[in-house]
């Protein structure tokens, strides 16, 4: 009787081990697939958007500021800039997630691109109030712009893009707060791509 119990237990443990390994393999495969899809999406956006949208004039007219400092900065727009595009008409939880995630990546994950919060807000005080609440020490550049002409504006969601040295938008990405892993992958791609590009 004892032998039967012992053998059954061994069989069960082995089966559990096999199952867990199998689950891990499936999980990794899914994640790899996602990363591939993400890179593909980023690449396509780059192809479609590069060279189409000249944003320099708008940005220069809107005036850039930092939090907490209040003096105007003349940002060097000849170097790449990560833009977090938000609007007061977006869902406020989505805005919070997009901004927080970007600040977090910059602080903890070594993202070297300077960041710009480009808001469609009724006033600079509104944008400043938002930046102050989310991180008083963030030192994000702040800018106001009503409509930047990108087709994605019509979707009423926060999104990121890299404003490169030629002042064109590329690497457009919509952060989904239900898909944090995917957002982190986006930032790791940016890290690899732009941190290296900077060093060159």
């Amino acid at each position, binding site marked *: 009787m004892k032998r039967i119990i012992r053998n059954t237990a061994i069989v069960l443990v082995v089966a559990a081990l096999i199952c867990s390994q199998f689950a891990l393999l499936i999980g990794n495969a899914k994640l790899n697939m996602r990363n591939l899809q993400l890179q593909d999406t980023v690449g396509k956006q780059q192809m479609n958007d590069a060279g189409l949208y000249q944003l320099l004039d708008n940005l220069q007219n809107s005036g850039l500021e930092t939090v907490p400092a209040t003096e105007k900065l003349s940002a060097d727009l000849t170097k790449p800039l990560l833009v977090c595009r938000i609007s*007061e008409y977006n869902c406020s939880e989505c805005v919070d997630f997009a901004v927080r995630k970007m600040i977090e990546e910059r602080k903890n994950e070594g993202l070297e691109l300077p960041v710009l919060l480009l808001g469609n*807000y009724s*006033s*600079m*005080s*509104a944008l400043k*109030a*938002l930046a102050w*609440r989310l991180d008083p020490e963030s030192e994000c550049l702040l800018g106001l712009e009503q409509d930047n002409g990108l087709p994605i504006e019509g979707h009423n969601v926060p999104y990121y893009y890299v404003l490169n040295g030629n002042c064109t938008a590329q690497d457009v990405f919509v952060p989904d707060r239900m898909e944090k892993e995917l957002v982190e992958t986006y930032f790791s791609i940016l890290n690899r791509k732009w941190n290296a590009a900077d060093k060159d």
Partner: protein
Amino acid sequence: MKRLLFRIPSIFAICLAAASCTGRLTVSQADVDWSRTDTVICDSDDGMYIEREAAFDSIWFVRLETDDKGLIGRPDVILFADSTIVVADMNISKNVLMFKYDGSFIGQLAQMGNGHNEFLYLSYVSLDGNGNVSVLDEVRGKILTFTERGQFLNERDCPIYANAFEYADNDVIVFDTGLRYHKGSPYDNISFVVKDGMMNDSYVFGLTDFEEGFNYTRSRNLYSYGGSVYGNVNFDDIIYRMDSHGVSAAYRLIIRPDNASDYFPFKDKEEIKNLYRKHTHFNGSFIELGDYSYFGISIKDYEKQMPDLLYNHRTGQSHMLLNSFNDPMMSFFVSPLTRFGDNCLVCVSSANNVLNTRGTFETAGSEYPFPSNLFEGLEADSNPILFFYRLAY
């Protein structure tokens, strides 16, 4: 084992009895009293227009002091307590701030957090009958109460899942459900739930679905005045009055010509959007005043004037407001947010917007002196400015 089997039915019976004693909800739809309903006519072709300048006898402003800890994104609710102006910004700074009547900053009323006097999600702010400020935290399902100077008084459970509430007479509270209920809730598809001071149901009021999955009765903001709470639901040109006596229809708004609501019933949300784009409609902006009621109307043809409407309680006449271009202070009269006192409408303007009108002030005639104290030290990122328009009766 046998003993246990015998005990199961008795345990079940005890549980049932306990459940029936613990205040079961009795939801009853209130009948609307139509005997005190005023008809308000807004006729852009044949109605009575007045210049906005003529409607007001006094205009003044309060600049809310700008402080790093007191930045306001966009005021959603402004409350006028005895000696404090309470400003709630629910979406941008997610803050409730206190200012003196001269605009100087007092401090934060409550802060975000998970503590017993903190909120996780700022949903609504309201004044109770004692002049204290109540803050609704929709996520934690709590109502926090503070004095108007921010001293924490108490915290209680919010009995239903609501997104706004206002106090009426006799400690009655009107909750606006926003129709965001889980199916199966006793208040499913109910717009307003009215409770007494002990949080027992007084009555509920609202309409049902037009078709499955499509709510057409999403309620709009609540307005508290004179012991009653006024509310309105979409696509319905009726303002309802709720208090401890029940619910009555206060105003029936008739908009001519070509009111979007006349095309009821609608098939879907897309059809509603199109109707609203192409036809005149009540935009849900309503403020009850001592001698007047204010209605916000939106029209299809933007070249025409926006005929915001003032209904005079004494004469029963409606006056559509025409834009005035003489007094530069009238340029800030846009979508009044609330009232002050009995007969004063309050509008909010961003510092940016005020700075842009500086030229208008400079070129205005000598009848309109340049208000230097409006512009002195004002920056584009200063806090918004409150403009007060007192109605001339």
